[in-house]
């Protein structure tokens, strides 16, 4: 999820508050296909990817591009993505009510069905294997595309300096649309995995948003690998701290789980004011990359 957020951020320089909506989109696609068409969520993954991707393109083309063409300040863009998120919360709310009342899918608001649909391997849910594999695959594919193909070159050029990229003859619009598509797809897949593991609800996106932001901020908002790292740290610490905390401090700790990404965010911002994109960090990451 952090990967997708960072991807939209580096292309449009706007924190996309609607990212949670894309995750929810994936979640609902997987769920609807499972409960109505009886398709295994793993088989419907490509379809979820497409749905998330096209929604992301829609958001970019219909809302963000026209706005930034009018020279809207960053605050307007942020509030616009927040508005998009709220529109989607409305849409998913309507959709879940529709599933509940018309299609008579009674777990449309909690998604136990998805958790049950997962296969098990060695007594552990399949998603435990599938999600890291998907993350690794996404990272490798993105790495290859970004560094080994002409398109990746164009994409990096656009991110670095879009005006210069235009001068060289790169169609920056295609680059933007593609990266939003990928970002939306990745977010949607992340949503399917999340629901396979923990279930979900119509406004799950807004809860996950903090974790996503924490992951991207920790990763530096500018580097995809950073986001992978940040996401791992945030997700890992959430699980670790709550499990250990529940063991040693008391079970009340578990309720404060969403506070951990916030804490990560605060610490990151305090230690490296202005975000982790400050010089030291960039030097560190670029040394790793070379």
């Amino acid at each position: 999820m952090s990967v997708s957020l960072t991807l939209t951020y580096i292309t449009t320089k706007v924190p996309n508050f609607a990212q949670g909506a894309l995750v929810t989109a994936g979640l609902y696609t997987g769920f609807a296909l499972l409960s109505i068409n009886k398709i295994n969520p793993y088989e419907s993954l490509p379809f979820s990817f497409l749905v998330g991707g096209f929604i992301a393109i829609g958001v970019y083309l219909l809302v963000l591009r026209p706005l930034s063409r009018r020279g809207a300040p960053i605050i307007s863009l942020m509030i616009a993505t927040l508005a998009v998120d709220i529109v989607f919360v409305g849409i998913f709310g309507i959709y879940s009510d529709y599933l509940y009342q018309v299609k008579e899918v009674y777990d449309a608001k909690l998604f136990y069905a998805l958790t049950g649909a997962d296969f098990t391997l060695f007594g552990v849910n399949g998603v435990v294997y599938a999600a890291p594999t998907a993350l690794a695959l996404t990272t490798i594919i993105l790495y290859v595309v970004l560094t080994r193909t002409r398109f990746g070159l164009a994409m990096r050029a656009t991110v670095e300096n879009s005006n210069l990229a235009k001068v060289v003859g790169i169609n920056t619009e295609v680059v933007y649309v593609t990266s939003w598509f990928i970002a939306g797809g990745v977010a949607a897949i992340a949503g399917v995995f999340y629901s396979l593991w923990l279930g979900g609800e119509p406004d799950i996106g807004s809860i996950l948003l903090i974790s996503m932001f924490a992951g991207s901020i920790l990763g530096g908002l500018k580097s995809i690998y950073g986001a992978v790292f940040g996401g791992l740290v945030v997700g890992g610490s959430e699980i670790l701290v709550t499990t250990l905390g529940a063991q040693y401090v008391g079970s009340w700790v578990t309720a404060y789980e969403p506070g951990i990404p916030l804490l990560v965010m605060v610490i990151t911002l305090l230690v490296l004011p202005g975000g982790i994109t400050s010089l030291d960090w960039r030097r560190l990451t670029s040394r790793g990359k070379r």
Partner: protein
Amino acid sequence: MMLPPLAILGITSWSTFLSGLLAFFALYLIISISLNIEMGYAGIPNFGKVLYFMGGAAFSGSVAIRAAAWIMHVPGNVVGLDNFLIADKLTSMLQSDVPASVALIAITMAIGGLVGGILGYVSIFPAIRLREDYLAMLLLGSAAFFQIFLGNYNPVINGTLGIGIPNFFAWAGPYSTVGATLLIAAFAVVVYVYAERMVRSPLGRTLRALRDNEAAAEALGKDTVAIRRNVLIIASIITGVAGALYTIYTGDTNPAIYDRVTWTFWPWLIVILGGVASNSGVAVGTFVFVFLLQYIDATKFLLQNALPFDVTWLEYLLFGSLLIVVLLLRPQGILPEKPSHTLSRSEISKMIEHPDDKKEGTPGEAAREDAPAR
């Protein structure tokens, strides 16, 4: 009974509708004006409005019922399971005790402002250091976490169950809701007048200078950090008091009420709809928004049977799209910010010629402070 006029529009009880309209208009006016002071004038994009509102509402409610129980010598765990019984008992006791009720109202509002101010003070640290986007993420996250905190930490408002607080307007009998509404309205007037006066004061001009060109304002010797800090604290206090007023109005407090859509996003929508950095615009925007919201609320039962989903989701769709449309088609809002009023050239030269009859302040200052129109 004869149907009231315009029942055709779907409104069955006009008195309920109008009183709700006034209460929510005043409430949203308070919050939106405070957001406008922060965002429109000082340039702090506060995406965590709900944080201050929630803090003010929850803690003031918590303190209010404790204080009431203390004054009235009612024993028991006031924020425990028998909270609603105690609240009812206190309401009936306060019915005949006007001074205590008034004192409790004052305490509630003061606590709301205090908690709002404390939260505002805490948010200074990120607000003066971070760029807009990081700040937005941080405040959004903090608000979400604070809501979780209230839902899990029982001593404040009994966790997710929430608490009821006694009706401080019980002495007004059947007019208790009207009393609470008028109280909110009175505070809204105070806030509006304050904001208007502040905008026309040197502070208001400094704020606009700071927003439009921070480096220039600093070069002119303005302490930008101190100004931002003060503005954020004042706006947070106002929002905290609004939270306390809402608690008094509804008579209970529950973490589930304080979602970011209702108390962060709607005020943003109002400010952008009405006109950023324009108090009269914000007032118009508030009216338009609250009228639509209340109208949908009053008539949604008509639609509810025809639709297979909750009408509330349609509100989300409608207002979310409305904001995007406003941003695209009229980003300056209904009533855009006006360039500040300065003296005309002839008047200034008249004053220079006759320096003795200074009536409207020193001409030099008025001429220097003209902030550029946006």
